[in-house]
């Protein structure tokens, strides 16, 4: 059993990220050296998906599945547990359904199925043949940090099985965008986390004292920047990450 280290520790065994124009690891290394706001338009081809599934994928689903599959070796796909963190989820697609409800029109059962908050989780499990525990969450500006925390709860219940944390969002539709001040960007970040293993370990605490909204890119990208820069400490709002020695 690979259970050692404190209950608040997770090692990043592997990562994978995608944003328009930042589509492989070298591109993200260059971005981390000179970070800038993320692009808002565009989504990955997700050519690894079966054509029928791919056709039904929303931009968010393509981002999530690209980040998820990119962080996993083929043999790991059915074995990891998963946490999907997204502030807005499928809200953009729900807007069309809400207009239909208000207009008393019939809903498409497929579109309804693909707009629930755990749609990407369900589609990942189907595409990966994965029957392990899975969670989907949202926590407003703390969504990335709470996704990490939820992944730690999985490691608390079973320290021996790695957890794939996927954080992803797309820019909110104009219907609501003015109501939500936040860094915009289309992105997906997959982090394969484990209690122990090869890869930097981080201890999470609640003494972050970070400045909220301090930078014009999403928290998930800021974590990746800090990871690639090898920083000893990162604070995002009240959440703090300290790199284990």
């Amino acid at each position, binding site marked *: 059993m690979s259970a050692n280290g404190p*209950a*608040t520790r997770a090692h990043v065994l592997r990562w994978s990220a995608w944003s328009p124009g930042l589509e492989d690891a070298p591109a993200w290394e260059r971005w981390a050296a000179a970070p800038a706001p993320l692009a808002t338009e565009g989504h990955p081809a997700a050519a690894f998906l079966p054509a029928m599934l791919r056709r039904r994928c929303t931009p968010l689903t393509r981002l999530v599945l690209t980040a998820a599959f990119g962080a996993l070796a083929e043999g790991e796909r059915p074995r990891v*547990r*998963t946490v999907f963190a997204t*502030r*807005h*989820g499928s*809200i953009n697609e*729900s807007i069309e*359904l*809400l*207009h239909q*409800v*208000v*207009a*008393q029109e*019939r*809903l*498409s*059962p497929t579109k*309804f*199925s*693909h707009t*629930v*908050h*755990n*749609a990407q*989780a*369900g589609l990942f*499990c*189907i595409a*990966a*043949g*994965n*029957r*392990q*525990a*899975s*969670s*989907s*969450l*949202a*926590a*407003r500006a*703390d*969504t990335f940090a*709470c996704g990490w*925390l*939820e992944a*730690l*709860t999985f490691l*608390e*219940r079973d320290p021996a099985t790695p957890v794939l944390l996927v954080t992803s969002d797309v820019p909110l539709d104009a*219907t*609501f965008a003015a*109501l939500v001040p936040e860094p915009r960007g289309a992105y997906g970040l997959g982090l394969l986390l484990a209690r122990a293993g090869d890869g930097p370990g981080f201890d*999470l605490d*609640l003494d972050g004292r970070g400045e909220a909204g301090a930078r014009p890119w999403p928290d998930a990208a800021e974590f990746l920047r800090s990871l690639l820069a090898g920083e000893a400490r990162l604070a995002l709002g*009240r*959440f703090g990450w300290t790199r284990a020695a």
Partner: protein
Amino acid sequence: MTARPPCRLAALGVVNALGADPESVWRGLLAGEPARLSWNEALVPGRRLLVGAVSDPLPEVPAALARYACRNNAMALAALAQIEAPVRAALARHGAARVGVVMGTSTSGVADAEDAFRWQRAHGGLAPSFDYAQLEFGGLAAFVADRLGASGPAFTLSTACSSGARALASARSLLAMGLCDAVVAGAADTLCGLTTNGFAALQAVSEGVTNPCSRNRAGLTLGEGAAAFLLLPEPGGIQLTGVGESSEAHHMSAPDPTGAGAEAAMRGALADAGLAADAIAYLNLHGTGTPLNDAMECQAVERVFGTSLAVSSTKPLVGHALGAAGALEAAFCWLVLAQSAPGVLELPPHCFDGERDPELPALHLVGKGESVRVEGPARVMTNSFGFGGNNCTLVLERS
């Protein structure tokens, strides 16, 4: 294997079609009649549906938190208000930063967003009372935390019908990790046009009362409600001792017909609690009354427990409250343990038309007025199987 750290479900607040306090809900569960369901003609155009609507008046969201003012948050507030004293005591004892919030929902404030969109059709802009904080899923946990003045981690889980069960599982882990000294956890869901029309489009909604395990079952009855628990890392009282989780990896809107995912969740919960199957005295079924759910769930239950375990679905009494169902049914199990005298468990009956499906295993469906004897600790289990293929089973224990 070392024993898990204790996790006490120290206080419960609950609201649903049966009432707005634990006593009323408990009486309604034992009565075992769908008498509190009501007909609704507004949710789905051209259809008259029986639903489990909350008819008790809900508290108003305080003016200082007006941006959160929607029916779903009022539902959560109705449950929270019932545990306010012990939560305030925990806040005073441990400090706001040590109290976390984990909530589940599948609807958040969609019902109020629909009103905002109706206003938009008439007036050209979203209703002035609307705020995105009502609609976004993270808004529920943020509201609960702001209302209580808790400043520990606060997040909302949304895995469809297993959301409420998952919230309790995550809360227990936050305590075990030592990141919180108390967690308020539960769920709230509200009847709304989006979800009702979505399930109607999937042909999953029954015309009349849902009829679980019957040969005549024809879909689910939707409902709404909220449950809120205070979880503390201390022994005694009623403990959350088992969590089992799995995914279906089968289809977005249908479970694996073999019940393999349901079986894995139940076996996982038993293993987590360190129990053999015969240690469980009662199982609250997911029991939605859809042909596929009941078929796969009954097979899975038979494989894990045989056919002698007392089981019932409480969804004919309250409707299926989706994102809140897992927390509500954990609340029903908590009431079974809290309200029964030592050595005996009074059980909510399985309400249906009495025409068992001969294709299903002949499970022991709880009859009206039935109770089971228990020696030593009493343990009960509840199943929640989410749309999208997300399963979570919990075990509760009274020593």
